[in-house]
């Protein structure tokens, strides 16, 4: 604000300490990522000597070449990409449509739908009843189990709704006078104006889809629908102390680890899983900061 205003010695010391704290935080957050990146890009036999910090000592892309020959990983990459795209699109459509109808003050089922949806934020059936339901619906072992159950998210609906509430209602009325029906208003008038809110929700949905592994573990562990996160989890768990035979370490992977060191494999796969998100999120930052705040105030 006003730097020159009585900048006493105590205040200056405070500033310096504050900056040091922040620099420490920066390095604690960034170092692990840079370390993983450096190891993944370093020659594996050289890595064994240790001492790699944030810069590769002997640069090599060999680790990445090796993991890309592992069929499970390539398959997982495809499934993860597919579920991210499909899941995000389905989630956006459902959330924006519901949000639009809930923002209409004249909609007579509004209160019912709103309460029906809001209640889901406070309870859940729990692990086993949900599992039994999925089994009864014959969704286990299919791709649908990734995108259908979580398609309608109450939180997302309410974030978009409060955004639509901020738009002038006169827009809808004038569109109506021009003969547009409610669906046309949603599609042609509301959706284009909602881009910031949609971008926020799209990021949340996409990150959620990309990052989830537990549904794969629970429903699809031994099918062709395993995801990238799940493959990474298998690799990480397979060499941890006391966990070698615990959760199905595959022979395929063991072969791979013999070609280059397990550590290099782990770090390279970690980077493949992490990089897509690191590329996207800074660009969407200004949207999600707004979206988070909005959601927090409303819910």
């Amino acid at each position, binding site marked *: 604000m006003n730097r020159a205003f009585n900048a006493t010695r105590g205040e200056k010391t405070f500033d310096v300490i504050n900056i040091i704290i922040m620099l420490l935080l920066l390095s604690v957050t960034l170092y*692990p990522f840079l370390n993983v990146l450096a190891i993944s890009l370093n020659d594996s036999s050289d890595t064994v000597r240790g001492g790699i910090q944030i810069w590769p000592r002997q640069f090599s892309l060999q680790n990445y070449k090796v993991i890309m020959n592992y069929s499970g990983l390539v398959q997982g990459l495809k499934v993860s990409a597919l579920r991210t795209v499909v899941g995000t699109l389905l989630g956006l459509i459902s959330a924006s449509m519901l949000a639009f*109808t809930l923002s209409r*003050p004249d909609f007579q089922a509004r209160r019912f739908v709103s309460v029906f949806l809001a209640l889901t934020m406070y309870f859940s059936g729990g*692990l086993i*009843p949900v599992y039994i339901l999925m089994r009864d619906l014959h969704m286990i072992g299919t791709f649908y189990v990734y995108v259908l159950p979580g398609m309608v998210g109450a939180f997302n609906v309410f974030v978009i709704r409060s955004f639509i509430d901020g738009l002038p*209602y006169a827009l809808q009325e004038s569109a109506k006078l021009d003969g547009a029906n409610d669906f046309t208003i949603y599609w042609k008038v509301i959706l284009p104006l909602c881009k910031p809110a949609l971008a926020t929700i799209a990021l949340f949905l996409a990150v959620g889809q990309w990052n989830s592994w537990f549904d794969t573990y629970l429903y699809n562990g031994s099918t062709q629908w395993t995801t990238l996160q799940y493959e990474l989890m298998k690799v*990480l768990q397979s060499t941890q102390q006391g966990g070698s035979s615990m959760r199905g370490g595959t022979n395929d992977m063991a072969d791979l680890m013999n070609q280059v060191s397990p550590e290099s494999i782990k770090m390279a796969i970690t980077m493949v899983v992490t990089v897509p998100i690191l590329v996207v999120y800074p660009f969407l930052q200004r949207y999600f900061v707004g979206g988070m705040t909005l959601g927090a105030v409303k819910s």
Partner: protein
Amino acid sequence: METLSEKQGSLKLGAEKRAARGGFTRFLKVMKSQRYLYFMSIPFVIWVFVFSYLPLWGWTMAFQDFKPGKSFGEQKWVGFKHFHELFTDERFYLVMRNTLAMSIMGLVAGFIVPIVFAVLLNDLKGKFFKRTVQTVSYLPHFVSWVVVAGIISKMLSTDGGAINNLLVWLHIIHEPIQFMAKGNLFWGIVTGSDLWKEMGWNAIIYLAAITGIDPELYEASRVDGANRFKQMWHITLPGIRTTISVLLIMSIGHLIGIGFEKQFLLGNNLVKDYSEVLDLYALNYGLGMARFSFGTAIGIFNSVVSILLLFIANGTLKRVTKESIM
């Protein structure tokens, strides 16, 4: 805000009109004119019913000896047998201890640190530096727990892990510590990892609330001779009190529903007695051993305690701070 209250006003007016004219035919007429709105919401309502409400029906399993493959009518009802079994199982109390310990540690750390971080970050002078710190602080939130667990075990490993290297280099320890194999360190590791992952993200809301504080308050306090600490204590913190209490209530409500991702991914057989939490217990005993009814009973216990805690927290805070979320 204005548009919202206007709409609410018109909504009330519409409802009164409807009540005045009354009648089912009137309702159907409106329904017909709003058919697009119905088409756009009813499918999703059915969706929510199937995937969120139907599983609640599964709670009946806890009171049966549920056998998959039999129809609902053929199941044998056993009353509270599974709950009785649960409360007499020694493992349950161990699991409960772990759940409570990790949630309380997570609650205290995960609640205080983001507030301190937000206040300090807000006080930073350089705009570019401030933005950089903020952007970087979100980063771990966006990677999965699988990745975080991998990173944490790498950092804590005895074989060239950064933490061990640092501690040895500083002569705090002589031999690298096997962090991941020591049960008594597990709770701390989980709490620390969670803090590392979510601190920046959780600070967003506080930062937004701080932005809403009137700058004139700071000017005035400065004229009165308040230093920075006093400003933080007397202006910033009271200014975000509402946000703090609402978030505190919500996190208390989720106290024992802490999930199991971290415990599942960071844990191993060596630390099992410290890492198993309620949800993992339900997973291992309920699904793993196909004891569906027993697992469901654990889930119900979890939900009931969570809701009770939410009410208690809400009631207490209502009395203390006049804030409430319900």
